[in-house]
């Protein structure tokens, strides 16, 4: 079997075994569904509650993508500003770090007080997602080949030309690496904020469904919603990886297939 097939088949075998073990544990121990539902019941719930879960998923995904988009705008924009002005970087970078290291779970309840619920959830998604974009883009912008910078100077390039023709293309690999991390984090930020909002009794996203189902002891639906969230996270990761590959495939070592 080829290497490529193994990479797909092996994880699937593990998944199958895991599900099988889960099913056996539930059946043999006769565990009641309100403690641990079997995989069959979770799947049945997923289908039964599909319209509700699907619309909740869309709400969460919308927030996630809006958070991600704002994170890219904010992260790249701030990185470019920092790159143009060392003073600005020195003045503001510490606060970007503070925003990053303060756990979003702790900020979410506060934001919910001051912002409308949608806005608070979006703000949480943005806060956790923007830092990796900022940090990676900053690194990319400042690790441009010095000789190329000299070359641009020799030919009298303007600041704008240096930024658009040299620094941004050179920083693209790091920027995309940041984006890939940010995609997952934006989902996490949205979920955390929704859980916090859910405990306040409002919300419509998937994480809110999980909180709500927990209160109602509807454990199968909790699992079904969790499953959907995981799948969403995986899809986001692969979509961003694919985007990275598409953009870099012609020139960057990370995306170029090597011939043996």
């Amino acid at each position, binding site marked *: 079997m080829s290497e490529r097939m193994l990479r797909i088949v092996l994880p699937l075998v593990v998944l199958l075994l895991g599900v099988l073990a889960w099913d056996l544990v539930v059946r043999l121990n006769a565990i009641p569904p309100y403690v641990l539902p079997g995989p069959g019941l979770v799947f049945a719930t997923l289908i039964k509650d599909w319209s509700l879960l699907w619309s909740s998923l869309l709400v969460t995904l919308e927030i996630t993508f809006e958070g991600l988009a704002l994170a890219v705008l904010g992260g790249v924009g701030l990185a470019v500003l920092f790159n143009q002005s060392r003073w600005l970087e020195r003045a503001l970078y510490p606060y970007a770090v503070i925003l990053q290291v303060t756990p979003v779970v702790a900020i979410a309840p506060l934001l919910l007080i001051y912002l409308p619920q949608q806005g608070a959830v979006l703000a949480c998604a943005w806060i956790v997602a923007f830092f990796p974009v900022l940090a990676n883009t900053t690194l990319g912008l400042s690790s441009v080949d010095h*000789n190329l910078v*000299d*070359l641009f100077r*020799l*030919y*009298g390039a303007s600041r704008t030309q240096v930024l658009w023709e*040299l620094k941004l293309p050179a920083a693209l690999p790091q920027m995309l690496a940041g984006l890939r991390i940010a995609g997952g984090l934006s989902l996490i930020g949205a979920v955390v904020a929704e859980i916090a909002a859910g405990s306040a009794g409002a919300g419509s996203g998937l994480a809110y469904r999980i909180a709500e189902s927990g209160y109602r002891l509807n454990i199968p639906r909790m699992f079904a919603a969790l499953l959907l969230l995981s799948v969403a996270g995986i899809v986001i990761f692969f979509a961003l990886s694919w985007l990275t590959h598409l953009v870099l495939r012609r*020139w*960057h070592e990370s995306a170029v297939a090597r011939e043996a």
Partner: protein
Amino acid sequence: MIPPPNSSAIVTIRGVGKTFGAGVTALEGLDLDVRAGEFLSLLGPSGCGKSTALRIIAGLSEPSRGSVTLSDASARGGIGFVFQEPTLMPWTTVAGNVYLPLKLAGMSRAAATLRIEDTLRRVGLSEFRDAYPRQLSGGMKMRVSIARALVTQPRLLLMDEPFAALDEITRFKLNDDLLALWRELRMTVVFVTHSVFESVYLSQRVVVMTARPGRVSSELVVDAGSRDAQFRTSAEYAAYCRSASEALARAMDVRAGAAA
């Protein structure tokens, strides 16, 4: 005593010194005339400031003391610079890299096409215009770098140990091609190298430099008719190389004497 300015000089350097921030003096009292149309080599041990001198001529570095004057002709026709590494932009093709100086000057791609094609043909890379730098060998990358320097049709070409990282076979070939280009385009070349053999083979005039601080130690005129494989194996070539080696040894003795 300061030598008088030379009327046929394309670059006139008088009493140039360069001290870096850390207090390292790279150049001191450098006097040098680069005559229009000549092939000049700066030969010296590493750390003798020859690269610094080249960067000062290019305007990439400001002299701490002294003056550098470029004649009108060279200022108008521009300067081409070839670095030790090929220094290509990996995200664009060979043609895109060669286009860069024209693009920065505001020329459209359509208007530049003919000149790009012409320059690529001169360096023997026409077939590779759509290739990305990573697909090329070290020698070919250096050819792209030379093409990029030539595309603006500079009067003065500055080269900073461009072939030092290449294997001997490739280096010999590029030496011959460079000489052919120099004859054909009638430009002035200042070539920095630490190789006695390369400097004698290529240049009409070899300027030997001392290290720490860098200044001109002696000068050797290489008055040879043809520069080809025969010249490379001739007794005449060997004699020139011996003189250059002795001059280099003396330059290094001066330094050892000064240090003692």
